[in-house]
């Protein structure tokens, strides 16, 4: 029996399994700051939370991240500069609409995001054990910020095992536009990779460390909570940006490592994109 035949014969079962599994999926690792396109640099507050952003639902307890750093570059011809940010992380309790989970915040002093240019923030979390799925999840997450409109390294991969490389500036998108990127698995384009698209539907309130209860949008059916698409045969994808705010793109299980501490591991890649109303 070849795998295609197997897949066909078990299509109904697979569909059923997907429907059952769907609510447990859609975890998104956030690197959040209110505005990624800054006119001038300065001190910056960032939030790292592992949650279900559309529903502001169950927030998972994060462990201290393995890595948190920024790769900045002023102009296309300049050299990228990597700055470790782990020392700025502080453990916090983050309140979702359904629970309280362990998250991290970073108060970055003004010297870090001051120069003109791009800042690619990178988070390598410690794998999270998802008991309901009996597997570990590790989402390599990027958020790209810019100061002053001088671009730099926004389109360059940073070299993660699972990574989404943008084809549009992630910090400069109009509502109603489209956003494209390439999913890289161990540095190579990942054809037909499964993507989930999430929306930060509840404003994170950084000072009170909770999601705002009011939702910006409602899903008419569960398929809309997180949209599902696949990359094409070159590992590329395009999404629409129908509403202002932060959109998360997550490529599931594209990283090379599939086991951690004797259990299955899903190495995902996440990229955050902000859409701005044209006014």
């Amino acid at each position, binding site marked *: 029996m070849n795998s295609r035949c197997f897949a066909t014969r078990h299509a109904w079962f697979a569909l059923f399994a997907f429907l059952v599994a769907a609510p447990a999926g859609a975890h998104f690792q956030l690197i959040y700051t209110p505005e990624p396109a800054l006119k001038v640099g300065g001190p910056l507050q960032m939030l790292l939370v592992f949650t279900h952003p559309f529903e502001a639902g169950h927030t998972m307890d994060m462990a201290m991240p393995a890595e948190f750093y920024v790769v900045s570059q002023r102009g296309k011809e300049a050299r990228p500069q990597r700055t470790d940010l782990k020392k700025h992380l502080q453990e916090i309790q983050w309140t979702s609409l359904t629970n309280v989970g362990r998250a991290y915040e970073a108060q970055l002093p003004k010297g870090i995001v001051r120069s003109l240019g791009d800042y690619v923030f990178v988070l390598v979390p410690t794998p999270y054990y998802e008991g309901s799925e009996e597997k570990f999840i590790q989402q390599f997450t990027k958020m790209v910020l810019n100061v002053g*409109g001088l671009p730099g390294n926004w389109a360059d991969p940073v070299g993660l095992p699972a990574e989404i490389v943008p084809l549009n500036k992630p910090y400069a998108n109009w509502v109603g536009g489209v956003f494209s990127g390439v999913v890289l698995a161990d540095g190579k384009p990942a054809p037909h990779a499964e993507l989930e698209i999430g929306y930060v539907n509840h404003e994170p309130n950084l000072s009170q460390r909770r999601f705002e209860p009011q939702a910006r949008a409602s899903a008419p059916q569960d398929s809309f909570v997180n949209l599902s698409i696949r990359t094409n045969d070159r590992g590329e994808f395009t999404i629409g940006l129908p509403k202002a705010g932060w959109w998360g793109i997550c490529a599931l299980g594209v990283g090379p490592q599939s086991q951690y501490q004797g259990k299955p591991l899903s190495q995902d890649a996440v990229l955050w994109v902000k859409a701005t109303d044209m006014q």
Partner: protein
Amino acid sequence: MKRWGCPAVLAAFCLLAAEMAAAHSPVFDCFNGEDGQITCEGGFSDGTSATGVRVRVLDANEKVLLEGKIDADGRFTFKKPPVDFHLIFDAGAGHTVTLFGADIS
């Protein structure tokens, strides 16, 4: 007249091409550094370098207090003048940015 048609189209194309090549805009900002120094950074919105672009520091009477060029690192650093001043980042016609000392943080 007809034989000029082609060069005219070519000229129009060249003008258009030149216009397109100039579609980037200058980006220039300064901030207060240590020891009374001000560091300025310049570039273009398409990410190209502004190395060699002239920067002038002028007083309220448009008298040039000092001038220099954006260095290979995209920067120009100078000692903060004791008077009101403004800067002009001069990358040619249509590509200048003026920044006032009072707006530098």
